[in-house]
């Protein structure tokens, strides 16, 4: 390979447009489109008695108002249950517009179309909906008590009971020398990308086709869903994810009600139509995650080795389950982390509540699982009076034990088998990075100044790059430009850069010659989506494989032109040449010309490929059997199972003895995602993940009152961290390549967020000598914990 670009921190190609205001986000498109606005339920649970739209009709600029009764056939059916699972016995999804009952504040009831958004909202405000309020189910414990039901036909509010089991945990715990039992709690947060959702649809009546732009993480699947609902063939629907202003999981859900309704109405009205979500809508009508209660029973020996672990989890699923039980599956499997647990049993009960739906947010159930396991490790260590890092070390899977089978079934339906890693080395590096061994001196020095500091750590394993597949298409044109496309979408991860690096390295072309398109069904129709830290693994490998096909074809054609054996050829800076002989060479753009036998010369380059110019033997077909014209290739990557990244985080925190304010003094990350495509981009992903983790650990919660009103549905009240709240993040890397894929890479997108709550809890507990069992931990929560601990010694760790 002549061009060393794979593994280099090259600057991002998408930035040129993004720093000059030339990005194209959803609401930047369709400047002449009509605008949609939604009437949304103000009640958490209510029956709709009547909808009176008459007050809206005299609004100037009003075009249409729709309620459920206006939706024909499949348009009005309940939204699909995207990921069915045998244990999801009572899966329920909402209607695009509520039919007769609303089950959370924010559920759409009517859609208004008008000349602009101001007028659409004027009209929406004047639509009168008569509701009969029903008792709301709010909070996990209330849902479990089931005095009231979210869905009349779902007994106990139970959507699913998922069990994961390896060995006889109950017996192992009963036989263990030590047993502990405790409850942990994690509150709701949300992805909260700065760009909300949005849909813009254009119906072409002459062509009978639809083009839809959506701020989505899954354009091909949005296309399939829209085509199915509107009764159109896939080929008549194109879906494009333009620049997407962050996703973090919430935009993987599809089709949203708006993704069905906006294209449907655009076709019906034969007008361009756009809906852009506002912030309040995003709080009450998109999705949340994280809320769980965990009851843990653990049995262990004198060295702190876990002999048996039994975890019962109550999971708040909100009002509907469109994304299935992926979060419970991920929590219950990834909980095991880097450890060998003697016997394990997890039971997750998914409960309905009258709140916004719960679907994956970066980490997708892992932060809760890791919180559970790492809190358990700390408990075990404190109980035995052992070093917390030492107890972890005693339980780690060793480097010579890979592939390591955890004996469970992962979120892709495949066995939970770790492919590679070096967890003891991760732990060693994390201890070094944070100064674990010298901390007691630091603590004493701080204490002598009247300061209270603590140290914590956490280790995690993350299954990344789940299947079923992604594909890549690579075409070299007659100007020598390399066009790469893949179906999955981008939300800021730098795919245009990372995928270009892969293509440039594989093909031996300058990076600047490569152009990458993602998330556009016009360019690549087969894809799954961007989630589960899978884009680099899945599309990265698919693009590499497609490049290898194109490279082989280029060498074959060039070999004919140069009368050389293709195995003696290589490509450097876009020129195919005999190895060690730069004079016997042909540029790829000429190879592209030769790859496409022509009758017509449309320019000088093309003339070289016309029938009287090419000196082919007259008995040979111009395009040989099995060959295709054009210097292009397509390939797919479909792994047998996921590849497992891992990391160890450690932090030092300071707590104010008076105000209970928590400050993160240092935060260290050691990360292993196999081979790095672009270390700068990977570090950026880690930084962003840690920041979201800090938000979840200290600040972010969704505060619902007893009637199901979200009390903090604004950025004034939902406290996302600013620059002033995020510590400087120190990083170190480890590279254990994945043996499962050609590039040896593992996913990195979610890594940063996963163990942060566990690490901060560990550090605050260490500083305070108080048990930290619930996150997020605000100063007032810590202050209250201190007061309670004055009277309740069980809350103290000593």
């Amino acid at each position: 390979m002549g061009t060393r670009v794979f593994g280099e921190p090259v600057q991002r190609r998408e930035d040129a447009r993004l720093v000059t205001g030339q990005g194209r986000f959803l609401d930047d498109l369709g400047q002449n489109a009509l605008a949609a606005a939604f009437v949304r339920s103000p009640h958490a649970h209510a029956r709709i008695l009547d909808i009176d739209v008459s007050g809206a009709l005299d609004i100037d600029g009003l075009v249409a108002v729709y309620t459920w009764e206006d939706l024909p056939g499949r348009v009005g059916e309940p939204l699909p249950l995207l990921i069915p699972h045998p244990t999801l016995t009572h899966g329920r999804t909402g209607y695009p517009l509520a039919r007769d009952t609303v089950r959370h504040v924010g559920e759409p009831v009517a859609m208004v179309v008008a000349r602009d958004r101001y007028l659409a909202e004027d009209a929406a405000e004047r639509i009168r909906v008569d509701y009969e309020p029903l008792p709301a189910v709010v909070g996990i414990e209330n849902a479990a008590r089931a005095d009231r039901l979210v869905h009349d036909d779902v007994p106990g509010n139970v959507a699913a009971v998922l069990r994961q089991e390896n060995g006889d945990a109950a017996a192992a715990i009963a036989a263990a020398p030590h047993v502990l039992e405790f409850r942990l709690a994690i509150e709701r947060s949300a992805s909260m990308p700065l760009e909300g959702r949005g849909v813009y649809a254009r119906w072409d009546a002459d062509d009978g086709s639809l083009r839809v732009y959506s701020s989505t993480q899954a354009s091909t699947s949005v296309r399939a869903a829209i085509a199915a609902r509107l009764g159109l063939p896939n080929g008549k629907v194109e879906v494009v994810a333009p620049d997407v202003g962050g996703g973090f999981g919430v935009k993987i859900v599809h089709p949203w009600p708006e993704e069905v309704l906006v294209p449907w109405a655009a076709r019906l009205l034969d007008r361009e139509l756009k809906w852009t979500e506002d912030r309040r809508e995003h709080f009450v009508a998109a999705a949340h995650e994280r809320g769980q209660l965990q009851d843990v029973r653990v049995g262990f020996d004198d060295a702190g080795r876990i002999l048996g672990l039994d975890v019962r989890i109550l999971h708040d699923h909100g009002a509907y389950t469109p994304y299935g039980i992926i979060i419970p599956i991920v929590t219950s499997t990834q909980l095991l982390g880097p450890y060998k647990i003697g016997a394990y049993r997890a039971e997750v009960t998914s409960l309905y509540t009258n709140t916004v739906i719960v679907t994956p947010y970066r980490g997708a159930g892992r932060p809760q699982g890791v919180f559970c396991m790492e809190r358990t490790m700390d408990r075990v260590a404190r109980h035995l009076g052992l070093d917390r890092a030492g107890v972890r070390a005693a339980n780690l899977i060793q480097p010579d034990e890979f592939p390591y089978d955890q004996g469970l079934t992962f979120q892709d339906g495949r066995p939970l088998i770790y492919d590679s890693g070096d967890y003891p080395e991760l732990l060693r590096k994390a201890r070094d990075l944070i100064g674990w061994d010298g901390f007691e001196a630091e603590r004493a020095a701080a204490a002598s100044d009247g300061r209270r500091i603590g140290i914590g750590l956490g280790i995690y394993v993350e299954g990344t790059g789940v299947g079923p597949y992604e594909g890549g298409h690579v075409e070299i044109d007659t100007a020598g430009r390399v066009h790469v496309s893949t179906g999955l979408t981008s939300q800021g991860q730098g795919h245009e850069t990372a995928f270009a690096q892969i293509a440039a390295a594989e093909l031996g072309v300058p990076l600047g010659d490569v152009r990458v398109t993602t998330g556009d069904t016009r360019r690549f129709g087969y894809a799954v989506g961007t989630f589960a830290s899978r884009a680099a693994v899945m599309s990265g490998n698919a693009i590499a494989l497609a490049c290898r096909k194109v490279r082989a074809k280029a060498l074959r054609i060039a070999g004919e032109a140069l009368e050389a054996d293709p195995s003696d050829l290589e490509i450097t800076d876009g020129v195919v040449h005999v190895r060690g002989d730069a004079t016997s060479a042909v540029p790829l753009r000429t190879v592209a010309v030769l790859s496409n036998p022509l009758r017509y010369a449309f320019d000088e380059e093309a003339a070289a490929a016309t029938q009287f110019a090419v000196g082919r033997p007259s008995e040979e077909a111009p395009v040989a059997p099995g060959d295709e014209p054009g210097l292009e290739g397509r390939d797919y990557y479909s792994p047998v199972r996921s590849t497992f990244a891992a990391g160890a985080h450690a932090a030092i925190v300071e707590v104010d003895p008076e105000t209970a304010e928590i400050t993160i003094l240092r935060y260290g990350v050691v990360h292993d995602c196999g081979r790095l495509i672009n270390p700068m981009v990977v570090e950026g992903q880690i930084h962003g993940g840690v920041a979201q983790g800090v938000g979840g650990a200290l600040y972010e919660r969704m505060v619902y009152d007893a009637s199901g009103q979200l009390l903090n549905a604004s950025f004034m009240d939902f406290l996302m961290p600013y620059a002033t709240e995020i510590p400087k993040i120190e990083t170190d890397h480890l590279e254990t390549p994945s043996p499962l894929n050609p590039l040896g890479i593992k996913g990195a997108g979610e890594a940063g967020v996963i163990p942060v709550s566990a690490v901060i809890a560990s550090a605050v507990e260490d500083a305070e000598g108080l048990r930290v069992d619930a996150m997020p931990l605000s100063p007032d929560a810590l202050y209250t914990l201190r007061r309670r601990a004055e009277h309740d010694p069980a809350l103290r760790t000593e």
Partner: protein
Amino acid sequence: MEETHEIVLTVNGTHRTARAPARRLLSDLLRHDLGLTGTHVGCEHGVCGCCTVLLDGAPVRSCLMLAVTAAGHEITTVEGLAAPDGTPSPVQRAFRECHGLQCGFCTPGFLCTVTALLRDTPRPTEEQVLDGIAGNLCRCTGYQNIVRSVHRAAELLSEREGGA
């Protein structure tokens, strides 16, 4: 029909005229009437800072201003930060160099904020940088590279001053 008002203002050095109702936000006027979609709207309640533009040089939230109140003023948006020949400003260059953006949605607000910050405080301390950008939310970067970008932009600016 809603009553509209003529609004005459200067945007990125060019005189612009638009008609809009009194309630129209400056952010909507810029984006949807003048086609300057680089200014983004992230919350519509003045907290996230995505919509930050410079009003007579000072950073303001364009989602909290009515367009009519901008009449007669001079607005700079992200589209106006580069030199007239298209050369990116030191702040824009620094954000690229330091990977100070990921999805890019909050970036125009940061660029405008930082442009004003460095004009008033050419060699900011770490604390001044944190303070200066503490009104802008970013959900992607964890801010670390944004802070680096601001320091780098200060360097680039001082090199430019030194070279001039």
